[in-house]
């Protein structure tokens, strides 16, 4: 079983991101379970949501305490809560920022980990550019697909088409494609570094 935890703030589409991840995994014939941390969500308040992916039925209902992957939708959360709590030693981290791990103050953290599993992505800018709104969730799940190879970009696009239609779907697909390419490029650089 592969477990993903997404941290963000109310209004950033955190819950929607896990739901779309679960739809993408379902499209590939796998079992998936997405659920929010069930707070009284308010705009701007820290929000956590979870997604499990497996090849067999998922029965477990506990919150994800030891994630295989973290997606952090808002870097300001780094100063507020321990987003890395329980992250597996070989876990993936995708962080929404135009900085690098070093320039955002996570240099020591990055040193201890497999660089091939860490990535930053300017997801808010991609959302603004392609959808006209600062919502980073869709670029991040496409970036996660590129980083982990857990799901295909085509499945993310299917999930986008299930959730949105018309221009909004088109914009999100463009954002997803660019995010996917950016992450793949960054990973190539790490592989050669």
């Amino acid at each position, binding site marked *: 079983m592969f477990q993903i935890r997404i941290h963000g703030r109310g209004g950033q589409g955190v819950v929607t991101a*896990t*739901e779309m991840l*679960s*739809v993408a995994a379902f*499209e590939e014939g796998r079992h*998936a379970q997405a659920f929010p941390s*069930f707070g009284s969500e308010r705009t701007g308040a820290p929000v956590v949501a979870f997604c499990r992916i497996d090849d067999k039925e998922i*029965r477990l209902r*506990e919150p994800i*305490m030891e994630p295989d992957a973290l997606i952090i939708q808002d870097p300001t959360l780094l100063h507020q809560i321990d987003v890395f709590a329980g992250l597996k030693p070989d876990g993936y981290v995708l962080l929404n920022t135009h900085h690098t791990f070093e320039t955002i103050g996570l240099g020591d953290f990055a040193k201890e980990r497999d660089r091939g599993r860490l990535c930053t992505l300017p997801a808010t800018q991609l959302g603004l550019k392609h959808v006209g709104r600062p919502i980073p969730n869709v670029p991040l799940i496409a970036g996660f697909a590129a980083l982990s190879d857990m799901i295909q970009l085509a499945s993310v696009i299917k999930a986008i088409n299930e959730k949105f239609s018309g221009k909004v779907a088109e914009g999100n697909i463009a954002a997803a494609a660019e995010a996917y390419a950016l992450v793949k490029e960054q990973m190539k650089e790490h592989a050669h570094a």
Partner: protein
Amino acid sequence: MLKQTEGSKAVAEAIALCRPEVICAYPISPQTHIVEALGEMVKAGELAPCEFINVESEFAAMSVAIGSSAAGARSYTATASQGLLFMVEAVYNAAGLGLPIVMTVANRAIGAPINIWNDHSDSLSQRDSGWMQLFAETNQEAVDLHIQAFRLAEELSMPIMVCMDGFILTHAFERVDIPAQEQVDAYLPPFDPRQVLDPAEPVSIGAMVGPEAFMEVKYLAHAKQMQALERIPQLADEFKKIFGRDSGGLVRTYRADDAETMIVAMGSVLGTIKDVVDEMRAEGHKIGVLGIISFRPFPLEQVRAALIKSKRFIVLEKSLAVGMGGIVATNVRMAVTGSGLRGFTAIAGLGGRAIPKSSLHKLFRQAEQEKLEPVTFVDLDWDVVNKQLEREKQNRRSGPIAENILFDKGMSSSAKFG
């Protein structure tokens, strides 16, 4: 059709397939998504003929359901927590009048302190109301139980609550097989009411009944639930023939053969329990599970049969009978009266407290060794509890409990700090 969808959305689709004629509801978390989706379907003309009635309260929701059901319309509503409590007088009336209303309860804690998260306190508070109560383990089962519930309710002319864990199921996206309309139509015939308010054939419903007849009416409600004990397994069998899967029934066991320790529970926590039991079985522990689907009627005979070969059992429940212990546990103990089985009660998950596998591993091992108190509060923070008890001993004006606990836990409290 197999789809990846939210529990609430799946249940709304199942309700629509049951062709309800009146839906009345008042929004309350975590039930709201269900009736929102149904409202959209009615507005879009996808669910017709059906009247969606926005009511001003839960009391009105159940009152409207009583009226529409008495008028011969298949009637549905949904609620949770304080909403259920607010409609209680009408809840008892619906059962007393024998009206086959189906209601989803998206199980949620009851305040105070106000809490929107899941436990089973709300529907269990209505255990003696005359409503049947079926508990879903997964969103698939929630879908299937609603279809079975309309059939059972209308056959017996008695109302049913289908209980699903608030947020944990209602807000979870998972794989659900939504049946085809033809399948549901083949399983669920049109509503043929036993009593109906019809101007062409006038009757009155809701007579004042004195001491000479009250007990007989009440006994008949009990007799109907005893009939339900026979019908629920049959309806699950018929369901399997049409829909091709096991869903519903009175109880369900898991890895219970040769089990010396049995874990008894209701609802979605059964999934986590099964994972823990698999891990413990792999280490050689003789442990099994009994899931109770039908809490009302309570299947005393089937519960006894499932436990009697074991040596001990632990009831893990998301409810608390304050001053007593467990609610489900009391019922289970009744089922094994005189058997000599050791029984333990574990109260867990109140107000949405997570029930992690690690806590269950510890608890089940203690149960195996019979090293548990009769009632255990799983993952209770004793430091905080003892601190408050000490505060009360020291100070007459020790202040509001919930606010003190939040303060001790390092969380802000709006009441204390403005």
